[in-house]
């Protein structure tokens, strides 16, 4: 990638790091929430469902602004986290937080659909053989929804790689700290003559996202083949 300048390489590296962690950290939550929405009936279920979808509905700028209000330097959660030594405001961790939240609805939807497709009769079979709920989940449900989890994860990763509105609003566009690929693209597009640099970056993100996509297809297909036994 000799044709990427150091600043651009830095943005690329940061984007990868942000997207990777955003996906990895949200995945367990995503699985948990998807399972709860698919299988449990509890008061506030619809509220949770709505909340999860919120980042999808809101204009990203609004999400970013809300994040700034809550997780910012002066926001209540931001201060709380700061007491534990965790600072997200204007850090790459904040970019990951924003990307994770924006990608969350996609991830949950994908995983939830595959959980709903698992025949509860198989889970029952696990239970009669002595496996408690968490065990049944780990040994029966989880392996069977793996294709969905992978699909959800890759969707989230791709979304995180492309996320921009909420990120720039929440953590700004600081090179080496919070300047992800899309933010860099944005900045280039704001000035005359920036198009070629922007195109370069866009191509890089496409290549990476497509690579991840192909990988996920392959892994997901293998997981699915294991389940269907062919």
């Amino acid at each position, binding site marked *: 990638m000799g044709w990427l300048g150091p600043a651009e390489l*830095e943005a690329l590296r940061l984007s990868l790091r942000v997207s990777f962690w955003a996906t990895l950290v949200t995945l367990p939550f995503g699985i948990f929430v998807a399972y709860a929405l698919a299988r449990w009936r509890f008061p506030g279920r619809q509220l949770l469902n709505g909340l999860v979808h919120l980042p999808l509905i809101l204009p990203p*700028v609004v999400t970013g*602004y809300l994040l*700034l*209000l809550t997780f*910012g*330097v*002066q*926001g209540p959660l931001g201060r709380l986290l700061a007491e534990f030594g965790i600072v997200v*405001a*204007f850090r790459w961790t904040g970019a990951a937080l924003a990307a994770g939240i924006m990608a969350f609805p996609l991830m949950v939807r994908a995983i939830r659909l595959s959980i709903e497709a698992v025949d509860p009769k198989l889970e029952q079979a696990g239970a009669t053989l002595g496996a408690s709920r968490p065990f049944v989940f780990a040994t029966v449900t989880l392996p069977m929804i793996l294709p969905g989890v992978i699909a959800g994860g890759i969707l989230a990763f791709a979304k995180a790689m492309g996320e921009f509105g909420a990120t*720039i*609003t929440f953590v*700004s*566009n*600081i*090179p*080496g*700290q*919070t*300047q992800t690929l899309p*933010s860099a693209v*944005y*900045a*280039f*597009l*704001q*000035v*005359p*003559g*920036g198009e070629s640099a922007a195109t370069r970056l866009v191509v890089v993100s496409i290549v990476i996202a497509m690579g991840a996509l192909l990988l996920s297809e392959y892994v997901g297909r293998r997981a699915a083949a294991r389940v269907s036994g062919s």
Partner: protein
Amino acid sequence: TLAPLRAGAAEILVFAAASLKTALDEIAPAFEQETGHDVKVSFAASSVLARQIQLGAPADVYISANVNWMDVLEDEGLIQTASRVDLLGNRLVLIGGTEQPKIGQLEPGLALDQLLDGGYLAMALVDAVPAGIYGKAALQSLGLWQEVHMHVAQTDNVRAALALVATGSAPLGIVYRSDAQAEDRVHVVAEFSPDLHPPIIYPAAIVTSARPEAQAFLDHLQTKAAWVVFSKQGFALPGS
């Protein structure tokens, strides 16, 4: 990844309107070379940056594309009032595809709809984005707004308005001269006289909680060397 800072060197975080990217990308390294300070510039919409400063962003210098947001920060005591300067100005131009004939002078009674020929006039958001606000004011001064306002296609930033004209989607557009300059597919059809609209000003100031080194950078922006770069990008002196 960063070169070790010289003794007394500091990191300066600049929040700048995105339209200044090309110029500052050239000016900041020169300043770093000279002083040994490390300058980081975060480019975004003026509104976004202002809100972040309101909510505690660790910025040292704020350069806005309009005065409104700077006024807000000043009112809230978030910038050092004494440091505020009107850094740059700009000119508003009417652009068109290269086949559009040039018009000498924009005057009241100009048959703008004829020029549009059923097409749209591309502008930035006329009530929200500075270039749009200035453009609307200018058209109002010319008495053209009433007849043309139904045919305005507003975009979220000037660059998008420029793209509409560049791709031939809109026959005409109103943008800054600095934007029009580098695009081959458009040319300036006419310039708006600066007195048709409120002055276009890019104010700059030091944030209240800034490091002392910030002043050096703000000073540097007002040097001759910096001005050369700015003017090369099509910026004007404030109020010109």
